[in-house]
């Protein structure tokens, strides 16, 4: 019964946390730019406004794909927080991303199309490291089940320092933060400000935003797994600091080209993720 309750709790609470996270993100960003920043609940106001806009669409299918995106992303999170299989979580999350890309493709706008291609490039960049993260957590704890990893003897980070760095690297891509915000960005500093979502009006954009809130909570949950066996007073502040680090990177870097992103992400996956995976047995003996 507990897994079911946990999944339900995630489905209800994740948007709240996701929304607060987005608000904090914007305030932190603003302070780094010496601005005051919007109120904490601004993302919520934005979402409400988007939802109330006049309904419009480029075709009858886009809403379907976006509902799929929300469904699979929230489903992946529910699977994760109910203690499910990590690889399946990643597969379902990927499925959600594919749905988002399909929504952009279907519109036939060259800008949305470009955004869709770039989103796929981002997936190509982060997918190996994401899988290597799951494989690393398995090697460290002997289980793919989140429920087992949480109760591991020692924190996985002790044998997975490289994997953690690699995951932080691709987390920047997944959180759509600079320098890897190729497909769509919150900032006005790139040519495709809203490439992926350019054709998605009002309610559709609200669905995307909600999906991202779910996704971000799930991604932070994945990050938390590295320190999960530690007590909350140690692991949660650490998590907050690492997120602030992502915001700092976002605000202090300029966007890279897709070739650079791809090469960098694969090199990181190889040099940190794969190398660490092979070294786990030695690190285990040593620690």
């Amino acid at each position, binding site marked *: 019964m507990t897994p079911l309750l946990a999944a339900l709790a995630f489905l209800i609470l994740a948007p709240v946390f996701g929304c607060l996270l987005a608000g904090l993100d914007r305030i932190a960003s603003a302070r780094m730019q010496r601005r005051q920043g919007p109120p904490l609940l601004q993302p919520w106001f934005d979402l409400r406004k988007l939802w109330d806009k006049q*309904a419009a669409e*480029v075709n009858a299918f886009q809403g379907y794909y976006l*509902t799929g995106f929300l*469904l699979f992303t929230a489903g992946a999170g529910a699977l994760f927080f109910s203690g499910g299989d990590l690889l399946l979580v990643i597969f379902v999350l990927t499925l959600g991303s*594919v749905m988002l890309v399909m929504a952009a493709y279907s519109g036939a*706008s060259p800008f949305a199309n470009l955004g869709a291609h770039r989103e796929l490039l981002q997936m190509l960049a982060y997918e190996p490291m994401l899988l290597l993260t799951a494989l690393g957590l*398995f090697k460290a704890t002997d289980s793919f089940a989140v429920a087992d990893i949480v109760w591991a003897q020692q924190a996985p980070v002790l044998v997975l320092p490289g994997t953690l760095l690699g995951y932080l690297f691709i987390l920047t891509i997944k959180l759509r933060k600079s320098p890897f915000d190729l497909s769509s960005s919150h900032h006005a500093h790139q040519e495709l400000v809203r490439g992926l979502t350019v054709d998605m009006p009002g309610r559709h954009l609200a669905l995307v935003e909600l999906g991202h809130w779910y996704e971000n909570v799930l991604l932070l949950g994945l990050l938390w797994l590295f320190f999960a066996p530690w007590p909350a007073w140690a692991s949660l502040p650490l998590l907050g600091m690492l997120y602030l680090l992502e915001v700092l990177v976002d605000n202090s870097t300029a966007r890279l080209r897709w070739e650079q992103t791809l090469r960098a992400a694969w090199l990181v996956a190889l040099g940190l993720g794969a190398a660490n995976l092979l070294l786990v047995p030695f690190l285990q003996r040593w620690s």
Partner: protein
Amino acid sequence: LERRLSWQILASLIVLPLIPAFLSLLARPGRALNAVVGSGALLFGVAALAVGLWAWTSAPGPLLFRVGGHALDLGLLGLEMLVLAFLFARSLSMRSRGAWVPLLIAAQAGVLAWVELSGALPRAAAPLALDHLGALLLVVTGVVGGLVAYYAGSYMDEEQQHHPGRPDHRGRFFFLIFLFLSAMAGIALSNSLAWMLLFWELTTLCSYLLIRHRGDEASIRNSDLALALNVLGGAFFAAALLWLALGPGPRSLEIHTLLQAGQAALPAAVLLGLAGLVKAAQLPFHRWLLGAMVAPTPVSALLHASTMVKAGVFILLRFSPLYQGSLAGDLLAIIGAFSFLLASLLAVRESDAKRVLAWSTIANLGLITACAGVGGHDALWAGMLLLIFHAVAKGLLFLAVGTAEHRLGARDIDAMQGLLQRQRGLGSLLVIGILGMFLAPFGMLTAKWKVLEAMAENAPLVAILLAFGSAPTLFFWSQWLGALLVIRPRPEPGLPPSPRPQRVAMFALALLTVAAALSFPLISAWVVEPHLALLFPGSPALDLWPLAVVIVLAVAMLGLPLYFSTHPSGALRQAPYMAGAGADDGAGFVNALHQPQALRLQNYRLESVIPAEALGRWALWVGAGLVLAAALAGVLA
């Protein structure tokens, strides 16, 4: 009850396709020929399915059939010599290859004749056998092969209409198709290696002649390449026989005896595995499969995607229990994983739909090879399921691409933009095929999940290669899917409808793809687990419950269109965003010269980051090195 299936029934499965084969030569092309093809395909498919279902519902474990005698063996040896003589004569006329091809054929003939005539190896007392794995290959051959043959009747008619000047060889074409089906049934049911070698070389022969079918320059060149490489595979096979006859290992031609001999038979198993690698187009032997794409599309669907290449991984899966835990087995797994990675990357570079499918086939067979090399309960489970799922989905995709090619006049993926909108039926079939190849709840993803988990435990290096290889597959399949799903505000003209037999065959394969996805727990319980329980006593059956969530989500996703079709959104329809320069209601834009310009969308090929030529060289050299290492590790074991 066990013995109720007599050897005559089994042997008749091999003989049965020969009847339509010879009738095809006699029938007049067109209606009469298609009637022969259709009824022959139906008969063979039903017979194969019946025997397969019988095997899966009876107790697992090989049923051995003691048949024949020296006379039959001599007859088959004579046939084999005929096949080799034909290949020898053809290899002499090759232009570009060196003398090694005819030499290898001659050596193979010599080895085979000596082994069988000198009595160095006792003749196989039970040359035929049936078990769950063999039944699997048999049913895939019968059902997918039957459907493809049926489809091919209509396809070859169209082909003839498109090129009225070409000589009409449809009769010979279908003779070869049915001869091939017979050979595949033979491979699935052989217990004697000598028998299997005959069928093995027959598939080489059929593939060679079918690739050449069109008779143009490219077909001839590529058929020569296919022959040269497959002769190399045959040579590995003959080397295995030679080792059995001369080496310290068990003196037997019977596969199931070798399996029981355990590690003592490893060298023979590795040599046979190398023969399997060639047939399955694994690195560094992959080039013939790319070349084979010049053949008519049903040939690609049948031989080069869903059945013949499966014979290669079939032999690897068969001997997997011997590879498990050995260095040679690990090397085979790395060859498979390496093939998966490189083929997936190179598929991204292609825009020709058939070549994308060919690379993806190499990649997926690599996945199965990796499973077979690592071995163990979970890996073999994934390997066997992959074999089924890949056969139906890839067969469907090839057929749909063939039909699309005849309608569109092109088989470029960019030409398929908006195909779902232009012809809903054909577009949906392609979409189902693509979903079957990479998304949940379709089996490929399920199998990939288990492959990764199995590898993480036993072979981290293989798992790493797979982690890197799976991202490019996601990339090129999503791009293709996205191209199909593009919806233009002003639809492009529709396409002429596909002929009925083509629609029927494709629809059936689509149905099978979906059915395999929905019923895979049943397939697992009836077909795969009993086989594995015998090989790995005591290892628990796989827990499939974690997949329940995925299936629930996917079913919800499939149910959503119902909601959307009954609840029209009533939303304002807007034109696609063109940065304010839209023209023709969103079908184009106004260019810098203030002229309307039609919008053209294209997929990425990532030329700047995927160096295809360098990767091709890598594939050859690293592949060759790994094969050499595997052969040494196997023979010296």
